[in-house]
């Protein structure tokens, strides 16, 4: 039976393959290309599409299958998944920050041989050959890696474009504040002076949301690291091991940045508003400067109308200098998969996608700087009719710009990011605590070497045999059940028919449930990184579990916030659902409409709704705090600075919006209660309250128990809301359990670790369910069960 399913699956796959391949004519080959189009949107998508079509026309015999994964975040999740399953695209985008990691994992093919061939061709007079010397050297170096660091080693891709960063400024506000426009050599003193002057433009008493603010300063980790470099400071040493965030120069720079935002009013956008932050705040016209951003914001900023149409004039200035000038190079390459079957054709395509024509098309879009110096310094890039006028500013910054190196371990950014957000944006911790937290967490992480220094490889063959043995045991059990105690032929036939009918389910269960569950149990005992084949995993025993339980403070924080949330959301949510059900069970005209209204939110729930709630909880302009201010309550910064206390309650309040599902179950339960009982109780002298307590509650107790268990499980699995609204921050204050699990699994690719978390959650859920069942046994009344 099971073999049958496997054979069927394999056949289906072959058929599918044949069908899709059928489109190819004999002799044609197909290349898969994957990219994203985050900030560039449709235009970037179109440029890639056009370039590929032209490539196909120029190269008959090569077909290109294009995958646009959307945003860069989704892109890497998809790319890694494809790589793991051995279906990596032939040619794909790689951001500079992933180069060392991918090189170390050996998922990209070095292209030095091709580059050498191009060099020779060029020397022989072929002007169409690639001229790597024309590329900005920093961008080329970003894709050379020895697997640990970048800058040297084999070349893993041709940079397609890049950007430097700086501030976008509102010329109109600068004029109003009588501040000179920044030049390309301005300093942080110039910067803050301008921000302060602009911050004083609003007369006192201006409404918070209309107030003019000096500057938005984002605190993403690469931005903060660039900022530190302008003061000669670093977050991490060049060896990518020693943390330097606590050095005096770093601390001084961080303290200054923190003070600008939190010790002054009006200079920097305050940290307690989620709505008014990031690049979009600039569009409002109420912010003097916004940054440090690269060119990716330009397509959005170009939608700002000119002053005559109610907009404003704006331009760009590179990152101000501190004790020295510095900037960062953010770049993306076209790279080739290690396992591509068509390296020659892939190289042809990479060359095509980074050639002059493609670069010029990209330059006109304005999204990034061409990596070819000759294109960047040509009118195609510099002379655009559209703002910013100061395209030269981006190029001038290159001189002092370098690539920011990241440790291969993605956990570095996962730890640094939230800490910077807490210290520099929401401001709920000071710089010293920020530095300490980071150092402590990073140490905990780096000191954790699961499986020791010489871990043993996982003996997959043994496990495979074990799995087969289990399967055999299962088959034997069924055979035993079928053949046991000779009974009547009818009974046996019935039994066989029974097994036959459940067999699709059993097969599905084994294949799609039991197998992944068991695999995750095994993985929780390994250090599998989620990229690369399973055979690369090492056996680490219970190291993941001991690290989680004994040392991982984020794990503890996530347990706490999840428990806090469940403690609020489950009892109050269920009470509300029951109350709603009682009200909705009244026989009133149009009750169906009201019921639908209660249930509707459960249908709508999702990302969009989470964003709406983010607005409701916004500290400054959110509906909730505005409502509270009507009753003279100064609402907290729910999801920001005060998230430690108010974060989980905010999410609980949000969950009350979704009680419709539980309500429906209660409603069904209520309608099962015989009306006689209420009438009998009424005649027995019971008022509405007593009838509810003595009739409704006991009769509904099995339903309550069911809903309670479901709600507890649901509460422990909160994810989407937190992922969308806070991303777990500030710090770990809203990092719910499953969100942390997701971070570990799909952002730092600690699959083994994440599997261990999943199993701990499973045990927790089982234990809680068991406790609830046990403690409720005496209070729950089952009509159908004998005592």
């Amino acid at each position, binding site marked *: 039976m099971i073999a049958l399913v496997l054979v069927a699956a394999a056949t289906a796959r072959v058929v599918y393959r044949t069908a899709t391949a059928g489109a190819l004519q004999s002799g044609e080959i197909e290349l898969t290309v994957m990219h994203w189009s985050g900030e560039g949107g449709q235009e970037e998508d179109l440029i890639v599409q056009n370039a590929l079509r032209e490539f196909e026309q120029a190269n008959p015999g090569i077909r290109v299958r294009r995958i646009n994964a959307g945003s860069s975040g989704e892109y890497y999740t998809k790319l890694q998944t494809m790589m793991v399953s051995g279906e990596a695209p032939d040619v794909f985008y790689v951001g500079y920050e992933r180069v060392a990691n991918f090189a170390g994992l050996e998922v990209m093919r070095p292209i030095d041989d091709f580059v050498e061939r191009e060099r020779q061709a060029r020397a022989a007079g072929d002007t169409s050959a690639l001229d790597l010397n024309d590329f900005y050297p920093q961008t080329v170096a970003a894709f050379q890696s020895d697997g640990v660091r970048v800058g040297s080693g084999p070349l893993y891709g041709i940079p397609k474009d890049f950007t430097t960063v700086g501030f976008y400024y509102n010329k109109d506000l600068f004029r109003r504040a009588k501040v000179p426009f920044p030049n390309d050599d301005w300093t942080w003193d110039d910067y803050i002076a301008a921000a302060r002057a602009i911050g004083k433009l609003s007369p006192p008493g201006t409404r918070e949301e209309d107030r003019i603010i000096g500057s938005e300063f984002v605190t993403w980790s690469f931005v903060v690291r660039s900022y530190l470099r302008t003061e000669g400071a670093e977050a991490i040493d060049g060896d990518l091991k020693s943390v330097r965030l606590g050095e005096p120069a770093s601390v001084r720079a961080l303290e200054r940045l923190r003070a600008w935002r939190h010790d002054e009013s009006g200079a920097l956008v305050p940290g307690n508003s989620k709505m008014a932050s990031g690049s979009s705040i600039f569009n409002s016209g109420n912010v003097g400067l916004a940054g440090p951003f690269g060119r990716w914001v330009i397509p959005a900023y170009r939608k700002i109308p000119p002053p005559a149409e109610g907009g404003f004039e704006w331009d760009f200035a590179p990152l101000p200098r501190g004790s020295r000038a510095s900037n960062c190079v953010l770049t993306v390459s076209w790279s080739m998969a290690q396992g591509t079957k068509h390296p020659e054709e892939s190289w042809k395509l990479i060359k095509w996608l980074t050639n002059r024509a493609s670069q010029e098309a990209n330059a006109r879009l304005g999204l990034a700087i061409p990596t070819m110096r000759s294109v960047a310094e040509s009118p195609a890039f510099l002379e655009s009719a559209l703002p910013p006028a100061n395209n030269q500013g981006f190029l001038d910054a290159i001189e002092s710009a370098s690539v920011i190196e990241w440790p291969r371990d993605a956990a570095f950014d996962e730890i640094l990011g939230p800490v910077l957000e807490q210290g520099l944006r929401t401001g709920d911790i000071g710089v010293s605590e920020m530095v300490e937290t980071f150092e402590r967490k990073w140490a905990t992480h780096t000191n954790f070497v699961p499986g020791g220094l010489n871990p043993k490889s996982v003996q997959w063959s043994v496990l495979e045999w074990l799995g087969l043995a289990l399967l055999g045991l299962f088959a034997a059990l069924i055979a035993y059940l079928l053949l046991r105690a000779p009974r009547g032929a009818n009974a046996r036939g019935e039994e066989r028919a029974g097994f036959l009918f459940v067999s699709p389910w059993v097969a599905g269960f084994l294949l799609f449930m039991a197998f992944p569950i068991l695999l995750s149990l095994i993985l929780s005992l390994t250090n599998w990184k989620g990229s690369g084949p399973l055979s690369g995993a090492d056996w680490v025993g219970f190291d993941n579990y001991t690290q989680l339980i004994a040392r991982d403070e984020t794990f503890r924080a996530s347990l706490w916030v999840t428990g806090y949330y469940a403690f609020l959301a489950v009892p109050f949510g269920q009470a509300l659902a029951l109350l709603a059900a009682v009200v909705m069970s009244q026989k009133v005209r149009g009750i169906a409409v009201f019921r639908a209204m209660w249930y509707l939110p459960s249908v709508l729930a999702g990302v969009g709704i989470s964003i709406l709630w983010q607005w409701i909880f916004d500290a400054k302009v959110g509906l909730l705090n505005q409502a509270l201010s009507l009753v003279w309550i100064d609402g907290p910064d729910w999801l920001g600075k005060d998230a430690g206390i108010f974060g989980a309650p905010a999410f609980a309040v949000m969950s009350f919006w979704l009680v419709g599902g539980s309500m429906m179950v209660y409603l069904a339960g209520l309608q099962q209660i*015989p009306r*006689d*009982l209420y*009438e*009998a*109780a*009424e*005649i*027995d*002298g*019971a*008022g509405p309250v*007593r009838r509810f307590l*003595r*009739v409704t509650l*006991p*009769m509904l*107790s099995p339903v309550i128990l069911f809903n309670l268990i479901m709600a507890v499980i649901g509460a422990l699995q909160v994810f989407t809301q937190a992922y969308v609204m806070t991303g777990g921050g500030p710090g770990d204050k809203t990092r719910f359990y499953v969100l942390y699990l997701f971070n570990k699994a799909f952002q730092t690719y600690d699959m083994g670790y994440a599997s261990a978390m999943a199993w701990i959650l499973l045990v927790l859920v089982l234990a809680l369910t068991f406790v609830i069942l046990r403690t409720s046994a005496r209070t729950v*009344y089952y*009509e159908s069960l*004998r*005592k």
Partner: protein
Amino acid sequence: MATVQLTKVGKVYAGERGVHFRAVEAVDLAIQDGEFCVLVGPSGCGKSTTLRMIAGLEEISEGVLEIDGRMVNDVPAKDRDIAFVFQNYALYPHLTVAENVAFGLETRRTHRNALVAALTGAGTARGEESAVIRARVAEVSKTLGLDALLHRYPRELSGGQRQRVAVGRAIARDPKVFLFDEPLSNLDARLRIETRTELRMLHRRLAATIVYVTHDQEEAMTLADRLVVMHKGRIQQNASAQECYENPANRFVAGFIGTPPMNIVDGHLKAGAFVANGVSVALGAEHARLGDRASALGFRPDRVRLVAPNAPSSVSASIAAIERLGDRTDVALDSPWGRVVARLDADATRALREGEAAGIAFDAAHAHLFEPGECGGRIVA
């Protein structure tokens, strides 16, 4: 104990688009203290609605309801001091027998006492009340033979036991009026008859005012001091069971009361004889006074005699079916007057065979004449 007085009581259900349904119309009923009053009628006749209006479970649309001389139209059910036994008993399934019986007593503890008890722990008030309740439960359970079942749950009881618990719950509170809504219909036939007798005895012992609803006319007759026959929302006859049997007020009552039901033949009176389908039977001199008119003739099966076919003053018929019940035999006959049932002494019918011809004769003195129509009134000769 108390009297119950209904004056022009009616129940109107609002239907769609202003079409109203009158479930009960102009019911006048005076129930004496200690009286066992049975409302009987086919389903949909309004008897249950009337009972539920007395209980306070349905609002009274029109008329006046008085219990013990006090108008209670707008008094909530719990303040009418009545007890209600439901058709399916409505025992609280999550409570034991003892708790079920005590439920009404517990809820009637004064709120102040409950509060004091809650605040002072096991206060005297609570303790005393609990003792009183326990004693009362014990007393009731003894009366009804529930002692052995006190700690069981309803699901562990047989139908008859549940029925007794439901009665126990009703009598525990010692209400002014007991209301029973078809309390025996979920029991099997034998148990129904046993319980019927117990109820009758219980009524005598408690000397309680009881309003009892049933669709079973036999049950109604055996229990009732006063029988109220209802049909289509109206009272058809309100009298003793015997009176309803002997002198049915109209054709509906005549047909409804009595088993097997009365034979009723549509025809007309002509010169002191009843003619139907061309067959005429002389009734007697006093009927001649009634003149010639359309009417229906009724005679009970036990007043039928079988005579030789074509005997004078008889209707020729053939025996369609013979049902021998031991002490008596029911014989169904096909005749020009339609299907006629005769209830005869068993000894007299031993020789009868199905298919044989026979003559139907009846005693004119015990025959009834009704106006035509479903509820045609009785014509007194």
